[in-house]
């Protein structure tokens, strides 16, 4: 899940895959805007066949938290 998410992240911001760590923060470290993040959620929904709740997603700060959230949704 982590590697796949890193691949998606690199389509949105100019960052080397190796530089993306679980503790990387989307906004502060990776340079995501809220629009980037919300657009990426749409792609993740299709890719992982899950339905994301915007308010829950707004609480996600780091890549690790996103992986955790996606894993939780996939398990449901």
């Amino acid at each position, binding site marked *: 899940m982590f590697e796949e998410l890193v691949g998606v992240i690199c389509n949105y911001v100019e960052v080397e895959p190796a530089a993306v760590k679980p503790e990387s923060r989307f906004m502060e470290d990776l340079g995501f805007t809220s*629009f980037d993040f*919300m*657009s990426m959620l749409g792609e993740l929904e299709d890719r992982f066949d899950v339905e994301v709740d915007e308010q829950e997603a707004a609480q996600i*700060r780091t890549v690790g938290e996103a992986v955790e959230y996606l894993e939780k949704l996939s398990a449901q």
Partner: protein
Amino acid sequence: MMKTRKGYQVYPLTVAQKFHFFYQKACPKKQVVNVGTSLTIEAELDWEVLKQCIYKAYERCESMQLRFALDKDGECYQYVADKEDRDIEFVDFSGKTMEEAEQVMRGWTEVPFELEDSPMNRIVMIRTPDGYNGIYLLVDHLTMDAQSLICFMKDIIELYCNTMFEDVPYPKDMASYLEQLKKDLAYEAGCKAKDRDIEFFQKLIESSEPIYNGIDGPEKLEEEKKKTGNPKQRAAVNATDCVDSALDIFHLEEEPTKRLMDFCEKYHVSLVCLLLMGLRTYFQKMNGNEDVSINTAIARRATLMEKKSGGTRIHSFPFRTVMPEEKTFLEGVYEIRDKQNEMFRHANYNPVSYFAYRGKLYKNQNGQTYEPMSLTYQPLTLQEKGLDKLGGIKYKTKWYPNGATTQAMYLTVMHRPDDNGLDFNFEHQVKAVSKEQLEYMYYYLCKIMFKGTENPDLSIGEIIKLI
């Protein structure tokens, strides 16, 4: 239906382009879609190298090579022409005053482009009276928006720095405009995502009728009630039929800007949420309505392809909030963030369809609206990449008004590169809104934002009383 033009394959306009195309058609001043800007630095430039870099940047950017053509029914099509070598002018403003130089560039910005089969941009290398050197760039909004224009300028800088300095890498390729265009047109032709977007916005519109709020208070709506003879009238005519415009800029200094940015970082919200909260609270204060709508622009550039393919992508939608006075400032900011996030996910929806659907549902007459103004926040600056390679050299960017607007009031907030402050650029119809009205609004907007960021648990009602 046109298929090719001058041997090039043609494509229909996107929804974002049609928006500009139609309002230009309706506007007596055709320069209404011109976007003019300049970037100058406090350093000597090698003009020949710069000229070659501009040619190279032009070649790397398909949307700078866009041309348009009309078919026999007046339908507009676009195509990407081969690179052509146009001479890049050089204008030396030395010996003139800054005001005189800016007046000349404003004049350039007021000249509309020929629509059919001709270049839709103009680049001039300039030396300004303050000793700065750089470029003036004019584009037609059908081909570029502010973000793609900044991206193009960054490319010129990076190419120049790569030529002039050994340790500066060659910039990565721009993305293909045509590839992105095909994606956008495929969405518009119909897909599940489009159906979801239509459903979202139609539900939103149907939820209830918004209400117009005036910059000075409810007088305009009251006049509209009298004019229509409808005491329940909720929409009013906001713009005038005179499109002559002025641009008034208010500067927020570095320190107070930092306080606003610190608040955004602390509470994990973007500056646009704070600006929307400030503006809507201002209208709530002036009109006594907890229901406030403002148009907001969405840049629609998330993927690297969208960010680097140029073109014009902005979609503007009304952003409506209904907030009772008991709600705290912070709760309001979070509500805006959540609503905006929701809207972001459906931002490909056609804004023209939005207004058509709403107008029909609530039986609006021509020119009647619920939104007194539009807001754009421009987070991109040239500071992030490129100019840092020149090593602490001071630079200036300036946007020039084109002299016409179909909207009563349009606020663009952008970061000022020279001191990290914020510029509040109010473009407005001179007959619809005066500078004094804007000064008053800006003053209270700042008071609301600072009171709220210093005391986020204060309620909206308390803030309105305190300021």
